């Protein structure tokens, strides 16, 4: 348990960074780092076994390397560097994020958890990461930041999953990762389409579509 607490705290700090930063490249890289850190969690919690090794390599490959590379490629293709005008400004989003994180910590205390999870940071971090992902999804205009929010949301679910990974079959986790990958692919195609039609990837433009 010694190593997991710093890991989970770093994950929360990365949430804050992503909420407060306008640079897309930096955001993608730091979310990739978050994914890579989370990949270490199964090893730290369950020790070295075939199951946790598969989880580790799968998560590292998908969350830490493959999807971020796709996203980096996407921002190179559509030539964008920064999120220019978020729906809510960066500082208010950051404040909301911290409030939500604090709320997650308070809320986790009221949950009827198993005894061994009571004092750990797992449940609050999972909730906080999911909330941050939601926040990113709803406050940003660019489709690519929304994909990042989706990725972060999935990271939060993954933290929950680690707690259950003894009980959860590998197939389910594989399915989740695959879902995510398909999601990113679809988003990539959609992004390209939006970009070609409107010469920008603001999702705001989509509301102007008529039949």
């Amino acid at each position, binding site marked *: 348990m010694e190593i997991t*607490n*710093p890991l989970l*705290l770093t994950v*929360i*700090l990365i949430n*804050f960074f992503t909420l*407060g930063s306008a640079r897309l490249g930096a955001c993608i890289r730091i979310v990739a780092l978050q994914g890579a850190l989370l990949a270490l969690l199964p090893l730290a919690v369950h020790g070295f076994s075939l199951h946790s090794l598969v989880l580790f390599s799968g998560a590292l490959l998908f969350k830490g390397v493959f999807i971020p590379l796709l996203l980096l490629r996407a921002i190179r293709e559509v030539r964008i560097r920064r999120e220019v005008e978020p729906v809510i400004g*960066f*500082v208010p989003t*950051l*404040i909301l994020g*911290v409030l939500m*994180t*604090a709320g997650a*910590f*308070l809320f986790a*205390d009221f949950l009827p958890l198993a005894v061994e999870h009571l004092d750990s940071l797992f449940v609050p971090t999972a909730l906080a990461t999911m909330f941050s992902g939601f926040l990113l999804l709803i406050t940003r205009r660019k489709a690519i930041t929304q994909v990042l929010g989706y990725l972060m949301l999935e990271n939060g679910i993954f933290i929950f999953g680690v707690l259950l990974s003894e009980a959860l079959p590998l197939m389910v986790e594989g399915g989740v990762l695959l879902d995510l990958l398909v999601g990113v692919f679809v988003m990539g195609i959609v992004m390209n389409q939006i970009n070609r039609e409107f010469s920008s990837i603001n999702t705001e433009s989509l509301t102007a579509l008529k039949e």
Partner: protein
Amino acid sequence: MLANLVLHLFILLLFAPLLLGIITKTKAWFAGRVGAPLLQTYYDLNRLWRKGFVFSRTTTWVFLLGPVVGLAVPLLAALMIPFGALPAPVSFEGDLILFVYLFGLSRFFTAAAALDTGSSFEGMGAAREVTFSCLAEPTLLFVLLVLARLSGGLSMNTLLGEHLLASWRSEAGASLTLILVCLFVVLLLECSRIPFDDPTTHLELTMIHEVMVLDHSGPAFGMILYGAALKMMVLGALLVRLAIPWDTGWWLTNSLIFLAGLSVLAVLIGVIESAMARLKLPRVPQVLVGTSLLSIFALVLVLR
């Protein structure tokens, strides 16, 4: 008690200007220059002290009060915080509030002295300084609250007491790391160092602290320079005590460890100044709000 007070003041008054020298030397080393001698600040102080006062005819007594309060406040504040493992000479319940607002007092008088000259340029600097430090104040208070929660006391001596070593090893270690980072940012801002303010440029429209003291000269400017060095030492002492909470039991080794910690801090500031550029002015409040939020988060972590 008296010996303690004398030792405290001796360390403070003698070694504070050295910190500025170490920072300058580190920056010079990074740039591949020889740089000013380590003791340059002492020479500067000596030179300024031998000059005469020059006052503009438009200024009043407020103008002189700025430097005087700026020198007196860090002296008073230094008496309330422990230097490494050396306990603070003056300590009472709740002095953390006084500690924070003493700096507010000095800021008020510096700003008032700047406004007293009637120059719009200095007024601009005063406005910036006040804005930024009012954003930095929550961070400092939340950091002290975290420490108060961990120690269970309300005086600086208890906040930075022996419990720190045990706290680092316990669950609270993460919060302590967070508040260490927050305190470092506050130190950089309060001492007007580079990501927030450039201490080496004069007459530039972007500067903050330096513009306010533009009209001071001679001994008054010396007081400002000395006061700034003392302030850096006092805030640095807070950081050093947090980062190095060991007590060797002998006053000499304790003070040596403390001074070594301060030198490392000064080198760190020098490295940051060499490696970073100044932040754009609108970015500064964002960073400060960010650190306030971090310190609130640290508080939430220790409260649960």
